Structures are given as C-alpha cells and as structure tokens.
C-alpha cells in the first residue's frame, strides 16, 4: 500500500522534471493534468488507509478542479493563442535539468535536517514536495512565456497540496474547497490576461 503511494509521488516529481526538459506547452499542460491525477490518487490512498471522509472529498474536488477543469481552460486558451513551443528561456534545457536534479538533492538535505529535529511526517514525501516546489519556482523564473509561468505556479500549488495531504490528513474540506476555487478563478483571470496581452502585442 505504502509502496504504491510512493510510486504516485515519484511520478509527480518525474512529471515536473519532464516538464523542465520539454519545450512543448501542450505537453506541459498534459503533464500538469497527469501530475494532478497522481496527486489525487495519492490522496485516495490516504483516504482508503485512514478511512477519512475528508480525504475522499479532497480526492473528488482535486479530480474535478485540477485534473479536468483547469487543464481544459488552459487548452482552450492555448488554442486561441496558437502557440505550441517555448522559445524564450533564460537557460537551456540541459542546464535546467541538471539544475532540477540539484534542487532535488538540496531538498533531500533540507528534509533530512528537519527530520533530525524530531518531526514525524515522512521525509520522503516532504523531499518530493519541497523539490516540486523549488522546481516549479525555477520554471517560473527561467522561462519567459506566460504559459510557463502559469504552469510553474500550478506546480508550486500542487507541491503545497502534497505537503498538506502528507503532513496532515488534508486541510478541512471547506478550506480546501475555497483554496481550489480561488486557484480556478485565478487561472481563468490569467487566461483572460494572456488573450488580452496577445491582442495588444499583435496590434
């Protein structure tokens, strides 16, 4: 059971690193959807294990918002903008991948340090969540296209959700619903802004 849960969180990290290594935006959105699905499965594992209604609810709303709705709107915006490839990057893909690897190692070190001070939650999940967080931030900084910034932000958000669902059995459902709803609206607004900025640059 635990091994399967660990597989899911490893796949989250893999999807982020794949995102770093690929310049294709459509693929990146698919990866985000996949990453959220893995997160949802991880939550489901917890829900089965602890038999917690809270986590079942969390699983359902993660599927609805993160796996379906947000990628759907991002695809729709992408279609209107007609962009397929990230061209502007501050550092090249090979360097970025190496950098992502070092960030993972760094978060492992930090996690070990925190575990030593007597904290109970699993160092493995914490490492992955911290690494996802840092790589998401790196994506936002190193890429210039607006879509990549959104995806970086979403990755950061997933990392925090992972942490929330691993150190506790999920936040109270009301709060989690509010957070996801805010996230969803912010994606809508950002898509709107992309369209407007595109139109302004074109004219």
């Amino acid at each position: 059971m635990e091994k399967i849960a660990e597989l899911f969180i490893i796949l989250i990290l893999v999807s982020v690193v794949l995102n770093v290594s690929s310049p294709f935006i459509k693929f990146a959105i698919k990866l985000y959807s996949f990453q959220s699905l893995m997160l949802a499965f991880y939550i489901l594992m917890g829900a089965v294990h602890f038999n917690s209604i809270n986590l079942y609810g969390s699983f359902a709303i993660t599927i609805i918002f993160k796996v379906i709705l947000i990628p759907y709107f991002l695809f729709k915006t992408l279609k209107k903008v007609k962009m397929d490839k990230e061209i502007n990057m501050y550092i090249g893909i090979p360097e970025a991948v190496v950098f992502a690897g070092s960030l993972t190692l760094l978060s492992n070190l930090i996690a070990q340090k925190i575990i030593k001070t007597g904290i109970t939650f699993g160092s493995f999940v914490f490492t992955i969540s911290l690494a996802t967080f840092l790589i998401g931030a790196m994506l936002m900084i190193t890429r210039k296209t607006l879509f990549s910034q959104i995806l970086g932000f979403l990755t950061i958000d997933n990392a925090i959700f992972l942490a929330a669902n691993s150190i506790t059995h999920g936040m109270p459902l009301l709060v989690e619903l509010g957070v996801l709803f805010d996230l969803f609206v912010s994606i809508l607004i950002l898509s709107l802004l992309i369209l407007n900025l595109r139109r302004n640059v074109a004219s």
Partner: protein
Amino acid sequence: MHHKLLDLILILPAAALIFSIFTDVLWMSYLQLAISVLVFLTVGVIAVSFNSIAFFLGGFFFVDYINLVILITVSTLELFVAFYSFGYVRSEIAGGVSKRKFKFYYFWKNLFIFSMMVSILSNNLGIYWTGLEATTLATALLVSFNRTKESFEATWKYVIMCSVGIAIGLFAIVILYFTTSQVYGESMRSLSFINIMQAGAKLDKNFLMLSFILALVGFGTKVGFAPMHNWLPDAHSQGPSPVSALLSGVLLNTALLGILRFYQINAAAGIHYPRYFLICFGFLTIFVSAFSIIKQTDYKRLFAFSSMENMGIIALGFGIGGIAVIGSLLQIFFHALNKGLLFLSSGNVLAATHERRIDKIRNLSKNFPITGIVLLFGAMGISGMPPFAMFLGEIYIMTGVFRTDIWLGFLVFILLIFVFIGLFGKVLKMYVGKANTGDEEEGGELKTDGAGASHKAVSEAGLHPFIVYVPLIMLLFSSFLLFYIPYPFLHIIKSAAVEFGGKVNFFK
C-alpha cells in the same frame, strides 16, 4: 455585544455586491453611498460599544481590538471612496466611457470590499487565506480597467506574484495546522485563531518558527516588503484612482494582519525573535522605497512607493514594540486616510490631463487650485509633517526606535528625510513650477497627449464637485485628527497595543 450589528458588517457589503449586478450604474452610485454610510455607522456603533472579543456567524468570524482597528480603517476609507466614486462615475460617463464598464467597476469593487471584510473578520486562518486570495482576484480586473498594454502587464505581474506569495502563506498555514492538530485533532478548530492562541504554550516551537517565516515571506509579498515588492508600484499606479486608494490604503493592511496574527501566535507560544524579522524587513523596505522615491518620474508610482515606505515603517513599529506599536496602529488608520486623498486627488489630475509624468505637469496652482493644494499638503502629511495626523503615528514610532537603538533610529530618520525631499519636492514642482520644455505653451499650460484628453478637462472646472471636494475633506479630517482623536478610537488603539505588549500609560 450587538450580535445583529456584527452580522451586518458582512451582510451589507454582500448586499452591495448583489445590487451591483442588477442595478443601473447611476442608481447603483446612490445605493453605494447609502450602503457605505450604513457600514460606516455600523462599525462606528460597534467601535463605541466594544468591550471584549465577540464571535458571530457560528464562531467563524470575530472582532477583537486588532481587527477592529483595520475594520474602522476600511469602513472610513470606503466611505470617502464611495463619495468620490459617485462623482468619478458621473464625470467618466460624461467623458464617453460606457455604462457597462462601470457596472463592472462597481461589481468588482464590492466583491473586493466583501472579500476583504471576510478576510479581516475571519477567526479561521483558512478562511482568512481564501478571502485574501479573493481580494487579489477581485482587484485584478480593476487594475487592468483601462485596458492598455501597461495595465495588462501590471495585472499579470500582480496576479502571478501575489498568488505565488500567498501560496507560500498557505504553506505556512498548512504547517501551523499540522502543529495545532496535535492539540485539537484534525478539525476546523485547529485553524481557529482564538483556539490556537489558547493552546499557544503547547505548540511545537520549531514548527511555529517555520510557519512564521513562511507567512512573513508569503503575506509579505502582498504587503509589499522590500525584496518582493516589484509588482506593487505597477499595480497601484495602473488602476483607476479610487481603486488605487483602496489598494494602498486598506488592502496592504489586510495582508499585514495575516503576519500580525502569526506574530501573535508566536508570542503566545513564548517565541520572541520574530520581531527582529519584522524590524529587518521594515527597515529594508524603507531603505529601498526611499531611494525609489527619489528617482521616480511618474507621480502615481511615486505614491505607490510611498505606500511601501509606510508599510515598512508600520512593520518596523510592530517589531520594535512598546509605544512604537501604538504608533503603528495609529499609522494604519492615518496612512489609509492620507494615501487615499493623495491617490484620489492625483486621479483628478490624471483624468484631466492624461499625463503621468511628473516633469510634464506644472503650475497646478493655476489650473487645479483645490486639487493642487490637497496634493501639496497631502504630500507633506504623508511624509509625517506636523499639521497632519501622520505626524502623531510617526513620532510614536520614531520615539520607540530611538529608545531601542539610537543608530537604527538615526538611519531611519535620514531615510525619512530622503522620502520627504523626494515626495514634497516633486509635488511642489508640480504645484508651482514653470513649464520646462520648449514645445509647451507659455505660462505653463498643461500639455495633453491629444486624442485622449477632451478639451474642457485640462482644468479643475470641468470636474464633478464631489471628486474635487472629497479629497479636501479628507485632508481637513486628517488635520483635525492630529488635535483631537475620539476617545473610543484611542481606547481601541490602546487595547490593541496591549495585545502586542505595548505600553499604555504613555497617553495618560
């Protein structure tokens, strides 16, 4: 405590939100006036009769002395902004902007006020977070209200930076939740601020420290603390003037409230060094903004940087403790008032001339007699000069700083002089200066950028009386407050300062 009245603080803005969907803009401006006056009166009655923490709406919301200070600030500034908007909407519609656009304006503005109220009053840190993020989203489309390329870019930066910042704040709340769930179990109680405070001593200190740092960085992004401030001058200068006033005057304080809550939790657990973090961030913010003010060329950005500087001073005051806390609490209210009047009156100049650059605007004394005076004295007031209320707040903070560390006080003092020179010098040039570029008309006629500016609007005469006189009234009010602060307000400030360990006998 009047529980019915407490409910009203949330119900009235919600009602305004619903009305703004269905009502015609001109009717809405009357309704908005009525609702803002009602909110102000409700808060006034609560402030006068307030004696202890009161819960309402099922314990999810509460009023204590600290959020009451911010509540009073919001309702006062919102009252002035509602009157200003009344004139603003009329003169913009007369200038050819569509009514539909202003329907959106009222809708988003009311959503912004409502979510801010939810944030301020919530007892639950999760709900606080949701409300704070909702304020970002509600103001995003207001910042891009003018639909220019610059405003869209400013909005982009604003939404991305604040969302990431607040996401870090969410991390802080998650860690806090983990800590408190060991006391209360996994329920809403573990996020309830009052419950967390009660359990303070039992909480894990390492985690609390971690959560405070994350909250400071996360919510600090939204407050505009120095290394994370890049979005602030753009977003605050691009929105319509009433929105800029609300953003600078009260939204920054709402985000600051989050940091203060974490600070209180740490203090309750017996952790005292978060104050050094506040001092560091506060000082750094004053430092960065002072130099940005000096080299600023756009007057709305100038005032945006001044907001940053004041947030730095407020954070510094909370970090120093003692009487500086009283200064900071006073400063929250006075700054909102003073910054509000600056943004509103500079909005008049912008609406009339369509010019953002300081060096293009000269001789306000001739074309904008009242607005010019308000801008001039407002700039004086915002840098803490005597006949205006902010002097009082700043003198308390500076006294506290000097008592704690004379060298820090000296440095801050020098920076404040820089700020004064930057702000007042620039506004003074706008007020009396002669036109300095050859291609403008002689006598310092205001230059307009052609297409955007209508002919009648290059002077104050064409403006609605409300938008000319509301900033003036705010200025007079600010001056009045220096000499007489109503006793209930003073009592609230003193009691709020006690919760931060401030000295109270200073007033007696």
